[in-house]
């Protein structure tokens, strides 16, 4: 947020950033309103050239406030509108994020319809509709027509949006590039009227400019639909709307999506679970990790009069006895008046806060996706042979609770399968197998996929810093592992520290990176165990093949030398071969552990799913997407993978044996 105010101190003499596809700024308002408005004079404002050195007075004449909207209009790259393709993706992202947030907050299972229409070569219209609670009429202009307006900034609560910039910025971009206002239709209930607004942003005043306001008939019961026309580019593959929707579906198995692309194709992502993520609570900051300046600001703004009450009311996890301890350490009492706390005392108080042992922040402010939901998301979206996921316990950075989750998918259709028994694959498959695939990192912050600035992201750095060689993957120094592996990393937090307003990369705090690495290590260890077991199994099955290959030769040779019962001899040799290679028979149970005939205890692999080499998502796994996976893959091959749910191992092994 500091970015918004910082430039006000500098002289406002920017050139307007040249955007070839965008109409000149003067044209912006032409079509939108008949109202007389002062023409924007930015860009040529201070044409008055001082011939000599500027004096304080002449400079003062130039010094004035800059509107946030104006600032972002010029620095749109900060919001993720640096190029045409990214602009479209960012707009989609903001619209979908808002829709999901709104639905979840209202306790509605989200159902999101996204459509992108191509109007001309570089002109697109994005339409996004949700089934959320809708927006009351009065708020519509503010939410969509004003930057930094919203419900999310002033609270510590886990949500996708944080600052209240996103969707307004998308609207502003559309306006800047096409001159077309944003169109919003919202309906708050079946019997309520639907309001249709057309809004422009007055960038100078950061105020909505209502162009049209009327009631309309819509075929849906409740929700909000936003339509933005913009100059944009549409792509496929990496960093595309497709990838964004794919990944969003992985991280939000409770949401249903439909996406209609510009060529008319319709993609459907059915809901995978009927369970909404746990509703998160707003929390107060946790004392650990806040900064001294923040504490002083809080002291100034608190409604409490005494320090003890201030600590209890404005922070989480501070009880009255703990507040007493803190005050004692700081050399004051709980009764000390807040307004008597001078900066020195505040510093002592700050130290005392940091030195006191406190309970970790409550977890109900966070709604992790959950290891099992991550597994089902990965199973749905990625065809691999091994899946595992891990959710770390919540912890704190700078007083903000956060939680890290990691999922790892390995092998299968990701290529480079290490199994040696893939002989039935065609030569095409073989080729793909030989090419070393680089690992892919899928990043999420509060369930929102992060598609840009991967290398600046704490998650990516953590992946690089992890020693994957220990887990059986090859990795060059300072690089991501060269292996067919997908690494999903999710950070859930009441305040995700992004490196910029466009929310593309998670800032690299030590606490965060440490947690990510711990979560990766947990998944990595399981992957390592799996790979070692698999290797061993392949090894023994290769040996058995060797023995079997020679058995007939030995039988025939011996038969030529002596007389005996040939079949009996062969049978005893075959059974000896089985014994000698017993490890090859080991099968994996639902936890990825070997099922051992003699009930030998093996270490359990939690939250892990192993699929046979076809890489099919096993039907009925976790009770999720049971129908569609059974339909699409039905009758292909019998499935060996088992659900990650904890059924008793004994029952399973009894059935297997």
């Amino acid at each position, binding site marked *: 947020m500091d970015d918004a105010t910082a430039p006000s101190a500098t002289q406002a003499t920017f050139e307007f950033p040249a955007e070839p596809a965008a109409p000149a700024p003067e044209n912006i308002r032409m079509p939108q309103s008949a109202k007389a408005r002062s023409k924007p004079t930015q860009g040529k404002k201070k044409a008055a050239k001082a011939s000599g050195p500027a004096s304080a007075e002449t400079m003062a004449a130039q010094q004035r406030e800059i509107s946030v909207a104006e600032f972002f209009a010029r620095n749109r790259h900060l919001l993720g509108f640096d190029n045409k393709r990214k602009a479209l993706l960012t707009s989609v992202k903001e619209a979908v994020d808002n829709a999901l947030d709104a639905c979840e907050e209202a306790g509605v299972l989200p159902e999101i319809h996204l459509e992108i229409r191509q109007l001309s070569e570089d002109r697109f219209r994005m339409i996004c509709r949700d089934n959320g609670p809708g927006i009351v009429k009065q708020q519509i202009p503010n939410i969509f027509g004003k930057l930094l307006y919203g419900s999310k900034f002033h609270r510590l609560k886990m949500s996708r949006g944080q600052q209240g910039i996103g969707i307004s910025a998308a609207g502003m971009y559309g306006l800047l590039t096409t001159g077309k206002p944003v169109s919003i239709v919202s309906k708050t209930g079946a019997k309520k009227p639907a309001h249709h607004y057309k809004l422009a942003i007055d960038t100078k005043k950061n105020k909505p400019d209502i162009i049209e306001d009327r009631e309309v008939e819509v075929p849906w019961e409740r929700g909000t639909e936003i339509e933005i026309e913009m100059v944009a580019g549409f792509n496929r593959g990496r960093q595309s709307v497709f990838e964004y929707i794919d990944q969003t579906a992985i991280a939000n198995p409770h949401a249903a999506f439909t996406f209609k692309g510009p060529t008319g194709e319709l993609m459907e992502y059915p809901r995978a679970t009927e369970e909404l993520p746990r509703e998160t609570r707003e929390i107060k900051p946790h004392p650990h990790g806040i900064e001294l300046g923040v504490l002083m600001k809080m002291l100034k703004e608190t409604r409490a009069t005494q320090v003890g009450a201030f600590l209890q009311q404005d922070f989480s996890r501070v009880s009255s006895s703990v507040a007493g301890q803190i005050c004692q350490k700081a050399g004051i009492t709980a009764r000390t008046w807040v307004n008597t706390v001078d900066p020195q005392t505040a510093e002592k108080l700050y130290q005392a806060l940091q030195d006191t042992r406190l309970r970790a922040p409550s977890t109900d402010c966070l709604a992790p996706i959950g290891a099992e939901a991550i597994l089902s998301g990965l199973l749905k979206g990625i065809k691999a042979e091994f899946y595992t996921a891990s959710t770390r316990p919540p912890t704190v950075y700078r007083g903000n609770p956060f939680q890290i989750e990691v999922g790892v998918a390995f092998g299968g259709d990701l290529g480079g399968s290490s199994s040696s028994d893939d002989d039935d694959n065609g030569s095409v498959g073989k080729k793909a197998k030989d090419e070393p695939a680089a690992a892919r990192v899928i990043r999420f912050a509060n369930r929102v996929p992060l598609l840009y600035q991967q290398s600046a992201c704490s998650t990516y750095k953590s992946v690089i810093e992890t020693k994957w060689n220990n887990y059986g993957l090859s990795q060059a120094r300072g690089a991501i592992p060269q292996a067919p592996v997908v690494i999903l990393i999710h950070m859930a937090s009441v305040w995700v520290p992004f490196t910029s307003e466009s929310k593309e990369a998670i800032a690299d705090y030590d606490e965060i990176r440490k947690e990510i690495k711990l979560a990766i290590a947990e998944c990595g260890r399981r992957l390592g165990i799996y790979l070692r077991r698999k290797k061993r199994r392949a090894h023994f099955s290769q040996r058995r093949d060797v023995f079997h290959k020679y058995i007939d030769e030995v039988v025939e040779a011996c038969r030529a030398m002596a007389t005996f019962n040939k079949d009996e001899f062969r049978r*005893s*040799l075959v059974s000896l071969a089985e014994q000698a290679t017993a490890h090859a028979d080991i099968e994996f149970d639902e936890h990825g552990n070997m099922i051992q005939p003699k009930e030998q205890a093996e270490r359990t692999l939690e939250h892990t799913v192993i699929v046979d080499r076809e890489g099919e998502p096993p039907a009925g796994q976790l009770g999720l997407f049971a129908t569609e996976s059974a339909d699409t893959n039905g009758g292909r091959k019998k499935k060996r993978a088992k659900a990650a749910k904890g059924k008793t191992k004994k029952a399973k092994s009894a059935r297997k044996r």
Partner: protein
Amino acid sequence: MAKAKKTAAKKSSKSTKAPAGKRRGKGGPATTDRITDLAQTVVAQAGKGTDPFVDIPIRALSNVDFNRKTRYIEMGDKSQRRNFFNFGQAKRFMQTMLVASKCKDNIERNKTSSIRGIFYQAKHSIKGTKEKTFDTQEECDPVLEDLEVALDSLREELHVYASSRGAMIGELTFVDSGDTIDATRLGSGGYAIPSIVEPSVIQFKKCNAKFVLHVEKDTVWRRFVEDRFWEKHKCILTHGNGQPPRGVRRLLHRMHNELKLPVMVLMDNDPWGYYIYSVIKQGSINLAFESGRMAVPDAKFIGVSSFDYERFGLSDDVKIDLDSNDIKRAKQIMEYPWFAGKKEWEKEIRKMAKNGFKMEVEAMASKHLSFVTEEYTPAKLKDKKSWLD
């Protein structure tokens, strides 16, 4: 099929060995029976649920002893177990069985095969794979040798012969497969010594020779033949083309023992020459189990000695520099128990090291072409003191 007797009875240490369990002796079971026993044992092992195996005596320096009494190399007691259900040995085990079955087949049909023939008989694609039972003959030959020791049978008893190498000419009349051969009338080519020279094949008739002169290679032998050395010196001339094959060694052994002829050996002056001499005299490590019927412990080394350079005033042109391999080999040879402790040999080898060069017999031609037959060899033969034992 007559079995040669082993003069020194080997300790019957091979208790676990598949067949008879005793070193071959008079009245032992016939080779075919031993092969059948081998197969039966394997079948019985499998039937009992044990991993089938064959014990194979080790053919390496670590498992040979130099018997100072008999003065030849004997095979020790160590054997190696070859299991079927051992990943590293499975193929070898299968190959051993395969070669054994082919040998039995040949014996029963009364056919004799070369070792290369056995390789082709046993080589085929394994059903359902592209893999061959044998890829090269080099893979097959050691298996056959393993089988010889494991079955305690001679190669000829398994109806296998090696390729012939080596030739003979001189004052001897003998019968080979019913044909009488007068070895004085063999022109310049001589008689090619076959690999099987057992009394069943070759019978000595008339011998006018006073000794046998064995030279290292064909080229030297030809010089001696052209100069009719055998006629002048009343001897039999043989060569074994480097390391002599079994047939040549067996024949030398027979001539020495049956015709009471001393065996003189003329080799190049280099570590290989020394070693070849020792093989003739004491037997080889690889075929230690056959030393008793091949070695000639009384054989004498008459040249070329490291001292001969000075003694015969040879020119610098005969010198070939020793390389690091030669030095290494010379050291190894000095440590063999059958060389160790022999002062004369120690002197000889040290002299060669001191000289820093080696010499070939052919080098004598630098004096004049027939120097070796007219001057060098006669002088050496006369001077018993210059011989090495």
